[in-house]
């Protein structure tokens, strides 16, 4: 199942979670404080009739799952007050609308009731009735009426994406980091807190994606994408993509016709704000992979989409593509070579302090502190590998897949594919013992080629060096075999080039001879 995080404003209700990360006691009356502010949370945004606004407490992972093993607050005193900071919308004291506390099992603690709120300046203070001593409080849910269905208005609370935990929508499908600010206080009342903190940068960008760079993971790997879309960039953004491809067989010389990317996510961007995607259901073979996260930009409009976007993309402020390598299971020789070549190229030609095409462009600005002639020359003349990759992808779809060279492309696709087929098995009848023409053979013998080859592979892998525990045949000979194959490839290519050159010289001499005669 793939989970999406959409723009926060579409959520029916907002709901905040996770206490322990930001636990702080500002004074003796405040028992728990998670009150960073600087952003607004409309807990009724996008609400429609019949929609369930009941929000479970989110865990540090999405989706939430109960019971929680951590991330909750165990009350040792009696919590008397829950404080929220209201910005606009419905008032605090509407009786049909009260927040509720949730314990680590996702249940409302028995006997604990949150009464209707009372305004205290910009704050809404809700009295908590019942004994909370020993209750393991994991979060807050907020319905806008008693039945947690339908919205009778909007209510905007102050909060921050820096508050610990995540906020989950009522249907348990949408998640954003942080949430509305709150304090839990004893009978001494709430005070302090609710201080504005710098929000996470709102520049449109790819924030992070997983698997992380140069990590080795098991199959199936966990893929994740975090991005942010600035509202002002919505008109220039077409979509967001997360894809990966194998770099073991995608050697540079056949890079243009290499196997297609496996696309995990490719959808249009319609809303601004934080963007989140994750999946762990894609099973792939062992090897080296390059994962790429891109924000695609438009130039001429949707009809031209990517074709126009990448022409001018390098000169915008949008840091549109990022990529790195990861390994599933065991890495491969060719994969490591191609990855190391790419990394060396980046290290040699790239500006070590530049993290985007915009930063590189500043190296050509003589008034900028980043100005450098070398870096500027590299930026202008050395082709960007990621842009090259996009160009080749466009070339592939634009004309390399058309008749007649499309047949070559298709051939390369088939030959570079990692899909497997079932090998045939053969069954024959044999006669054991004396037989006759009247008695057909009754014993069958089956040859399963796949099983036989697998058995041979297991046999080879089981061979261990004498006196060296754990050092198998593969450990000793794999690099030798790879080296021999690579050497054969290189010699074949060199021999073909030398033969072609010899043929050219022979043709040239014969033409010279004809001219002279």
């Amino acid at each position, binding site marked *: 199942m793939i989970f999406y995080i959409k723009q926060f404003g579409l959520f029916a209700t907002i709901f905040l979670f996770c206490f322990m990360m930001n636990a702080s006691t500002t004074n003796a009356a405040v028992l728990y404080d998670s009150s960073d502010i600087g952003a607004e949370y409309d807990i009724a945004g996008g609400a429609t009739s019949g929609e369930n606004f009941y929000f479970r407490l989110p865990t540090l992972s999405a989706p939430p799952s109960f019971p929680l093993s951590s991330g909750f607050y165990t009350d040792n005193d009696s919590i008397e007050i829950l404080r929220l900071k209201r910005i606009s919308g419905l008032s605090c004291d509407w009786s049909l609308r009260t927040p509720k506390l949730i314990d680590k099992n996702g249940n409302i603690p028995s006997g604990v009731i949150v009464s209707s709120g009372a305004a205290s300046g910009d704050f809404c203070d809700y009295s908590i009735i019942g004994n909370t001593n020993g209750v393991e409080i994991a979060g807050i849910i907020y319905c806008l009426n008693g039945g947690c269905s339908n919205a009778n208005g909007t209510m905007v609370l102050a909060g921050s994406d820096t508050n610990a935990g995540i906020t989950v929508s009522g249907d348990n499908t949408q998640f954003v980091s942080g949430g509305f600010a709150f304090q839990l206080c004893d009978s001494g009342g709430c005070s302090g807190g609710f201080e504005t903190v710098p929000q996470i940068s709102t520049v449109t960008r790819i924030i992070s994606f997983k698997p992380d760079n140069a990590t080795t993971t098991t199959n199936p790997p966990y893929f994740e994408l975090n991005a942010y879309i600035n509202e002002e960039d919505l008109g220039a953004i077409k979509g967001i993509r997360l894809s990966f491809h194998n770099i073991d067989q995608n050697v540079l010389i056949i890079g243009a016709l290499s196997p297609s990317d496996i696309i995990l996510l490719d959808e249009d961007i319609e809303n601004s704000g934080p963007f989140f995607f994750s999946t762990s259901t894609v099973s792939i*073979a062992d090897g080296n992979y390059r994962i790429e996260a891109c924000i695609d930009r438009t130039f001429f409009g949707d009809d031209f989409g990517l*074709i126009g976007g990448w*022409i001018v993309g390098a000169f915008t402020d949008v840091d549109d593509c990022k990529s790195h390598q990861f390994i599933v299971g065991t890495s491969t020789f060719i994969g490591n070579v191609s990855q190391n070549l790419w990394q060396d190229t980046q290290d040699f030609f790239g500006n070590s302090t530049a993290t985007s095409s915009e930063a590189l462009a500043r190296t050509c600005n003589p008034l900028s502190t980043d100005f450098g002639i070398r870096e500027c020359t590299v930026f202008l003349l050395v*082709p960007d590998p990621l842009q090259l990759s996009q160009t080749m992808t466009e070339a592939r779809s634009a004309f390399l897949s058309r008749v007649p060279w499309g047949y070559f492309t298709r*051939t390369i696709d088939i030959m570079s594919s990692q899909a*497997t087929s079932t090998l045939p098995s053969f069954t024959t009848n044999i006669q054991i013992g004396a037989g006759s023409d009247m008695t057909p053979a009754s014993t069958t013998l089956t040859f399963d080629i796949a099983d036989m080859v697998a058995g041979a592979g297991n046999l080879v892998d089981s061979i261990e060096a004498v006196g060296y525990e754990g050092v198998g045949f593969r450990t000793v000979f794999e690099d030798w075999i790879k080296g021999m*194959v690579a050497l054969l490839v290189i010699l074949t290519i060199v021999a073909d080039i030398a033969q072609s050159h010899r043929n050219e010289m022979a043709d040239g001499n014969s033409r010279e001879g004809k001219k002279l005669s």
Partner: protein
Amino acid sequence: MIVNLILNIIVLFLGGIFSWLPAVTTLPTINGYNIDAFMVQGVGSLQTLAVAFWPLAIMFQGFLAIMGYFLIKMVVKFFLGSRAG
């Protein structure tokens, strides 16, 4: 960036010229023989063998590298003709 821009313009230009050609999704069927299915089955079988017996995987990767070289050579000769050498 300049090189990227030039390459992008070339790709855009060629894409526009050849956009009228039909796209190839599968290899053709000749005299009743589905070449695409044969190749998919054949390569898939090789992949099965490569997964089961790891030296085959290494040899197959080398084979692909050589095939890539000859393919590029063929393309270069096609475009450059006798000047390709």
